[in-house]
């Protein structure tokens, strides 16, 4: 499988793009973010039923069309472009890859078909309140009661799309070390609290677990390895999402710079404005190269993934931030208004930089993984 974009990928991308423009343009993100849960269940189901999007992250034997991250990444670019709210990243970036990595037949048969069909929203929770992103363990504890199974207690912070989720894979401390437990997110013993977010288009929740029944996923003690695998995948897809969002910012900047006139000519003819746009383009092209390579590597060069995933996430988040910030600037006063979409991208950009670890942390992680 080469790095070239195939006709099928191109077609899917066009179809997803049309669908999102019709059903979930940025205007829709604004409506959703005013409510409790930034998620449109109809759009989610239609993405699965009409376009087969969720199936792209699920192996064929569990109701999907096979795991094809390279193709999925194109969908994420489109989703990023319109700031699609909802659990794409949580479900296809974190939960599905974790389930696949766990190689646990029972868990896969139980959860993956629902994910592929768009009937299950899934997410992963591991962060202890106040802990850094790379701390695994300490958020929750799991105990086994003879004859009754596992029960999970604790407090898990900043769970992506925690309120929209049906299933939460919680990394909890078990006797053999951090382990993954499947918890019914709407079930007994789970109290979900909405977290008001800097980026209101991405849902966040804290989960308070009080004797919540859980099912062990994969080996006991495998929590860190499984979470690492899932996070790498999430970073690859997040990188694609940031590239799509950054491109939307640049497109907005350029079209405004051609329309808006000052001093009797379009502001886009001023070099100060032109160079901003050109710099943003150079950065986006670089980030896109990284994101597409990382997505390709997931299928074709897996041993590179730990390095390229980290690198692509950092490059994408930086490019998006630059594009979003310059977009506000190029729009002048209008760019600073609530009415204009520029701030939604700026918020998404900062949130993407911080999510899973900021760029400095990512560079240090990259240095570790390179063996510097």
């Amino acid at each position, binding site marked *: 499988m080469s790095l*070239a974009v195939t006709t099928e990928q191109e077609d899917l991308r066009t179809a997803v793009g049309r669908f999102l423009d019709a059903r979930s343009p940025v205007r829709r993100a604004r409506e959703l973010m005013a409510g409790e849960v930034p998620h449109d269940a109809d759009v989610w189901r239609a993405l699965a039923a009409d376009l087969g999007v969720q199936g792209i992250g699920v192996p064929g034997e569990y109701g999907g069309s096979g795991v094809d991250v390279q193709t999925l990444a194109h969908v994420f670019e489109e989703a990023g472009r319109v700031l699609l709210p909802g659990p794409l990243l949580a479900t296809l970036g974190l939960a599905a890859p974790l389930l696949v990595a766990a190689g646990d037949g029972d868990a896969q048969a139980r959860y993956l078909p629902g994910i592929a069909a768009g009937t299950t929203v899934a997410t992963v929770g591991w962060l202890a309140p106040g802990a850094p992103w790379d701390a695994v363990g300490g958020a929750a504890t799991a105990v086994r009661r003879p004859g009754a199974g596992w029960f999970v207690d604790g407090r898990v912070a900043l769970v992506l799309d925690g309120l929209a989720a049906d299933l939460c894979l919680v990394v909890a401390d078990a006797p053999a070390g951090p382990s993954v437990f499947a918890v019914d997110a709407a079930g007994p013993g789970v109290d979900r609290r909405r977290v008001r977010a800097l980026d209101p288009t991405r849902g966040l929740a804290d989960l308070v677990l009080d004797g919540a029944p859980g099912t062990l996923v994969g080996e006991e003690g495998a929590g860190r390895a499984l979470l690492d695998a899932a996070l790498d995948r999430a970073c690859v897809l997040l990188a694609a999402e940031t590239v799509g969002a950054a491109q939307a910012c640049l497109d907005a900047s350029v079209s405004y710079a051609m329309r808006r006139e000052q001093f009797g000519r379009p502001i886009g003819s001023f*070099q100060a404005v032109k160079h901003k746009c050109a710099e943003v383009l150079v950065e986006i092209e670089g980030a896109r190269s990284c994101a597409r390579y990382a997505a390709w590597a997931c299928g074709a060069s897996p041993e590179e993934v730990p390095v390229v995933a980290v690198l692509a996430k950092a490059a994408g988040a930086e490019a998006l931030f630059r594009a979003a910030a310059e977009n506000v600037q190029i729009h002048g006063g209008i760019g600073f208004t609530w009415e204009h979409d520029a701030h939604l991208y700026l918020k998404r950009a900062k949130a993407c930089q911080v999510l899973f670890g900021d760029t400095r942390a990512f560079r240090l992680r990259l240095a570790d993984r390179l063996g*510097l």
Partner: protein
Amino acid sequence: MTDSRTVYRAARSTAAAVDPGPEAEEFRREFRAWLSEHAPPELRGVGWPAVQGSPHAAALKAWGDVLCEAGYMCVAWPREYGGRGLSPVEVAIMNEEFDRAGVPRVTRGRAETTVGPAIIAHGTEEQKAYFLPRIISGEHVYCQGFSEPEAGSDLAGLRTSGVVDGDELVISGQKVWTSGYYESTMMFCLVRTDPDAAKHAGISYVLLPVAENGPGTGIEFRPIRQLTGRSGFAETFLDGARVPLFNVIGGLHQGWRVTVTTLGHERGNRATIAHVGYARDFWAVVEEARARGLTDDPAVREKLAWAWTQIETMRFSGLQLLAALAAGQDPSARAENGSVTKIRWSEYASRFGEIAVDLLGPEALTAGGTGEEGLGYWQEQFLSSRSGTIWGGTAEVQRNIIAERVLGLPKERKGAGR
């Protein structure tokens, strides 16, 4: 992870990422076998292009002759013009194999990558038959006579004049920043042949023999010392230099479109290869940093990780370009845009030069090395890296090009930038 492992990794993933097809793989096998038999051991680890006064100059020339003899010179040119008709993917494979074997790919430099393609695109059959074989053989080594004291970024503002006299052109004026003048036998230069025409319409693209330059020949180079201490470029004084009209490419007064072809190649031809040398320097700096016990410092680690991200970005974008070409696609205007590539590598190189020198600590202050002015390798790299954002069109001019030609933003004023 070591230097060789990195380079090899790049080679491995090109095959996988690009899916070059059975013919290209066949070429790889063939060329690898040829190279393992012929690669000169004395050139192992020697860099290319050779710097002025390189102790390996003779060996490099001999190796060039061997490559020439075997038909491995100017390989991207069509077969009918003495090339090998290799696709960009096959050229990339060839570069990888040279790299794998650890010997330099001797090329014909700017004659191969800029003048040659311009002659192929715009020359007459007679011109192609005369000039192209001489580039391949190494008889014609070109320097570039574009810039003038008053015309740099505004290249079309040039004043050097060419006056038709019978079947000759008589050239007078001054060029500047002529790189590689010391090894050249020819100069491709721009002259104004129609002073009354519009700025871009009166220019001719001339191949001027300079082998016998000096007082009395109408051509004189005066070396200019660069900030590295070397004199890599010169002022060129043209005073009634005569050249047959045969040497005008693309037609009299029609030189601007030939120039555009040349500039495009000048900017674009590092897209798939730049990362290899940068990766080599990167791992060398990592070794230095390790030896100095600096790699535990998070600030240093962060800088190095940033550098690696840039190098990989160059590799990834080059691979995507090749993958698109191998799949028979027309790569997007953006991905293939030489200006994007040029800004990326030139600004990276400058920043990396700073990082490398910073790592030297107090030693950065002293000149105890073997280079010009006693400078060390990293000090020289730091200094010379500052030219990448100037030659071939400055970074500012590249940004203008991106803004206007890729993003479609309006021109600031007519004809801003080369």
